[in-house]
């Protein structure tokens, strides 16, 4: 067995397991936890396009989740447009806004971009909280939006009676975004993004317009992030600015990426696999006893990983996998 075959078999096993998981996990509560886990893995993978590969640190991505959720929901509630269409409109708006943030900041020190993403996200959130109606659009201020439950929803309505379809939608979205990232990272765009992120002057001398490539990555990342916003709106059927567009979500995405491994393909998934259950568990079991303890643990894990594994958990895990794989393939050849 060659290494390539082993990789493929393993990937197939993981994919099959993911598709088959609902056969075992039937409780809606646990299914919901899995859905959210994939949701976070998806968001982090989208973030990683700009935060990982392009070497900058956006800390306001929740605003794009919000743009996705609001766009598709307003279109559905007021104009009867299917969320599937609204999702793409939201993505397009998010991409444009991402480019607007990037235009002045990508030519400057990374800290500016980082701070500006935060200020922009918070600015939009505060404005949404202050606006009840924007022209013909009902935004509903701090109360957020309620997507009414339909009696007989069809697929076109992006609403389902059970959790199962949501599970498969987010799983497919996650697989698509992972495949897309894999493709990008092996293409010219991926090489150019990494080069521009690491040494912008050297990259420019090799013919790379670094700011333009970052803008492209930002647009892609924001577009994909907004798609998840629509998914969230249709899953929860209710959202409000503080919960959806606050800094907590933005930071959690960045934490997952950094703990998992920034700029790697598996990093966001590994990070989400570790942090999401930890987050749910500590929140449920510890926050009653000692409010805040779960966030202390969260912060400590972050600090420890950054000190001891600055490249995230993916690096040692893939080294381990390499060792095991070598053993297996060598044994296979010996036989």
């Amino acid at each position, binding site marked *: 067995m060659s290494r390539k075959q082993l990789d493929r078999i393993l990937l197939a096993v993981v994919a099959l397991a993911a598709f088959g998981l609902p056969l075992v996990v039937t409780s809606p509560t646990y299914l919901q936890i899995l859905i959210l886990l994939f949701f976070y893995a998806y968001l982090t993978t989208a973030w990683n396009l700009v935060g990982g590969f392009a*070497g*900058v*640190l956006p800390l306001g991505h929740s605003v794009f989740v919000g743009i996705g959720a609001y766009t598709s929901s307003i279109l559905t509630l007021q104009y009867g447009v299917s969320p599937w269409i609204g999702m793409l409109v939201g993505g397009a708006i998010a991409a444009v806004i991402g480019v607007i943030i990037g235009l*002045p*900041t990508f*030519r*400057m*020190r*990374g*800290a*500016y971009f*980082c*701070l*500006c993403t*935060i*200020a*922009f996200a*918070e*600015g939009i959130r*505060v*404005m949404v*909280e*202050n606006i009840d109606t924007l022209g013909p659009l009902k935004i509903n201020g701090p109360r957020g939006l309620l997507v009414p439950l339909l009696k007989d929803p069809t697929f076109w309505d992006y609403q389902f009676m059970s959790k199962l379809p949501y599970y498969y939608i987010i799983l497919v979205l996650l697989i698509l975004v992972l495949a897309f990232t894999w493709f990008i990272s092996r293409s010219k765009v991926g090489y150019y993004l990494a080069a521009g992120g690491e*040494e*912008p*002057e050297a990259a420019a001398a090799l013919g790379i317009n670094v700011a333009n490539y970052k803008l492209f990555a930002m647009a892609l990342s924001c577009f994909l992030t907004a798609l998840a916003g629509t998914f969230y709106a249709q899953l929860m059927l209710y959202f409000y600015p503080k919960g959806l567009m606050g800094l907590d979500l933005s*930071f959690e995405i*960045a*934490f997952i990426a*950094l703990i998992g491994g920034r700029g790697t393909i598996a990093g966001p998934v590994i990070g989400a696999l570790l942090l999401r259950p930890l987050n749910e568990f500590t929140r449920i079991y510890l926050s009653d006893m*000692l*409010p*805040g*303890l779960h*966030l*202390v643990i*969260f*912060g*400590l894990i*972050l*600090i420890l990983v*950054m*000190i001891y594994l*600055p490249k995230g958990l993916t690096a040692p895990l893939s080294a381990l996998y390499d060792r095991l794989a070598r053993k297996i393939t060598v044994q296979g050849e010996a036989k």
Partner: protein
Amino acid sequence: MTAVIQAALNGAMMGAMYGLTALGLTLIFGVMKVVNFAHGSLLMVGMFSAYWLIRLTGIHPYLALVIVPPVLFVFGYYLQNVVIKPVFKAEGQVREPLTVIIVTTGVWYVLDNLALMLFGAEYRTVRTAISNKSFALGEFIISIPKFSGFVVAIATAIGLALFMRKTKTGKALRATSLDREAANLMGIDQYRIYNIAFGLGTAIAGIAGCVLIPFYYVYPSVGVVFDIRAFIIVVLGGLGSIPGALLGGLVIGLIESVFSQFMASTWTEAIIYAIFLIILFVKPSGFFGHKQDW
């Protein structure tokens, strides 16, 4: 009109507090090139330190100014030495240490939530001898604790600027901020300078904590209010600029206070962000920043 001027006066005094917070942030950024996301939390630590000191010993609030900042200097010094330095070293030659930014975020989470576990979420104030004192300036009323805070903020900024220019340590800080490789070659220990910068930034947060306590309430996430403003201020004033931090603080304080005369206070926050974004597009390097700041 009277009300607007009164609001402007109050805004300037509150703005000086924002500026004071931003001062520590800009100092740390200038030297280390790291946005310290834990800065608001350090302010919170300063406020709680002053709060408990005054509450338990009953000393005059401004006596705390002699005790709290030195304690916070030590705290900041070792925080950088133990938690942040290892990450810096791991990043090695990276031009801009973004991982370090994330570590400061971890510190923020830990500190804020430790405070939540220890002290609970309630808003606390401490009655001091000067809390409700004020004086009249013509037809305007000036609160004494706010005015003292204003004076202390200006004095701190001037003191810091002098320290950076006149003392050997200050010169080493500036040399490191200009070019850390060159400073290294001149025999300056980069990480010791970082410790000092972080310690000083934290001590300034301690000063801010002491002067805020007589008229502001303290709670575990109080830092976030100041954090977000301080971020905006340092970008407005130019990352790393001392006068920029103070001026940016005054601008934000004035806008916040004067606009709240005409509209709901939730809108003033939106306006601050809007102004911030306009400046970003018109003059992205801020009042005192350098143009292409690679």
